[in-house]
């Protein structure tokens, strides 16, 4: 694989991610508007769809907040994309100069803002080695941070999950978290739920689930698929609505990622994703072919 081709492809994918939202989420927003019965929520959803059209027409950012950049990169034998991190950094800097991204990354304690959207640990890159994989998958996501303010995590146990009562402990925790978040995560939102591992594993699973999956997909695990749908519908029945000012759809999708855990615990991380789903992904084959995967 030619480093130049790889670098350009990653750069272009980052720019695509920051200049629009992924088509699955746009489709779900349009469907939510068709179903909506509250006039306030209809007006909010219409503003969101208008905003996407205006941003595209005027070549502007959809949202003023650039979110926080995380990339997922998987690779196989002999195709580790060593240029990826540099390519993402350059794309961030370019996008900032062009006004697609507001300079927003700061030191966590001093709050010093260097003005170029980089800093220690930024972008965050999650690498995964898959033996035998003859391509590189690259997905970048810029997740908004109002959504982060509603996130929650809890270490459950067998008893508190209520596995003998159809997981009602878990389900109630999800709804409590949604109610506490209210309109903060820019609804209609998606929710990633990570279950298992220890605290760190559950948190990463939650971000990966909502950032890398198509929000319209069906979980291949049928039990998780039905849990995802049940939670989405229960959450929507709360009446919180688009923007949190009341309505039929506050949640467009729930996506669950799991990992095995220790018998003493069941860590659960709940991760909101605002409707501004700035993310994009490509598959780069070893022979140079490039496919869009998100």
């Amino acid at each position, binding site marked *: 694989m030619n480093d130049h081709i790889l670098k350009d492809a990653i750069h272009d994918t980052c720019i695509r991610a920051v200049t629009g939202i992924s088509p699955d989420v746009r489709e779900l927003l349009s469907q939510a508007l068709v179903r909506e019965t509250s006039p306030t929520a209809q007006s909010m959803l219409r503003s969101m769809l208008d905003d996407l059209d205006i941003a595209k027409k005027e070549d502007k950012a959809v949202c003023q907040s650039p979110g926080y950049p995380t990339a997922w990169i998987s690779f196989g034998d002999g195709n580790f994309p060593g240029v990826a991190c540099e390519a993402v950094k350059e794309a961030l800097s370019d996008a900032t100069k062009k006004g697609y991204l507001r300079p927003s990354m700061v030191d966590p304690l001093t709050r010093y803002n260097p003005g170029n959207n980089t800093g220690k640990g930024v972008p965050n890159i999650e690498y995964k080695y898959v033996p035998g994989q003859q391509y590189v998958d690259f997905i970048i996501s810029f997740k908004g941070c109002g959504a982060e303010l509603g996130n929650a995590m809890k270490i459950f146990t067998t008893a508190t999950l209520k596995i003998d009562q159809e997981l009602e402990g878990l389900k109630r925790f999800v709804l409590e978290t949604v109610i506490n978040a209210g309109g903060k995560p820019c609804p209609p939102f998606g929710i990633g739920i990570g279950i298992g591992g220890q605290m760190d594993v559950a948190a990463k699973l939650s971000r990966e689930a909502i950032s890398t999956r198509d929000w319209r997909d069906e979980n291949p695990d049928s039990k998780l698929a039905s849990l995802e749908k049940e939670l989405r519908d*229960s959450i929507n029945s709360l009446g919180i609505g688009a923007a949190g000012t009341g309505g039929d759809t506050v949640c467009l999708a729930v996506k669950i990622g799991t990992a095995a855990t220790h018998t003493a615990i069941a860590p659960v991380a709940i991760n909101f994703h605002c409707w501004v789903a700035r993310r994009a992904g490509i598959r780069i084959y070893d022979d140079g072919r490039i496919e869009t995967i998100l």
Partner: protein
Amino acid sequence: MEKVLNVPLSENDVRDLHIGDIVYLNGHIFTARDMAHMKIKGLINEDKALPKELRGAAIFHAGPVCLKKPDGSWKLNVIGPTTSIRMEPYAEMVGRVGIRALIGKGGMDQDTIDACENYGYVYLQAAPGCAAKLAQGIISVFDVNWLELGMPEAMWDLEADHFGPFVVGIDTHRNSIYKTIRENAIKKMDSIYPA
């Protein structure tokens, strides 16, 4: 009810508003988020002058994307609301300095409901994430203070023309859309998954 109001706002302007009303604003809009609120609080405590007259002001919880033009002036690219609850600790201060409207997203809490009634200010909800659309209501950048805090945290003075629409989320009569929605949501949750 749909209303177009001019900034500076009077106490009567905002006491006439009720939750659910739709509002558009004309005139000066100041942005302020976490750092600007902290800074204003510090200046007041030290009895120092503020960079802007805040009596009658409309404060937008927002940090714009601005580009500097070759002549040194600023062009606003996009602007949209940030999550307002972070500014809840300043509810009392906002009222004391005479601010009449906050614009943001996601709603605010009990301290703001109390201060809105006591001092006479309202909380206006903007459509979240809609920065390209909202930018159509900003026609120029007057100036910027505290740019050393970084572009998002600086205090931008913007010229608004038919800026909105905003929904009155908290009025001066102790009504909050968010509080009612929350109470109903808790009842619903208790009926689906009892504690």
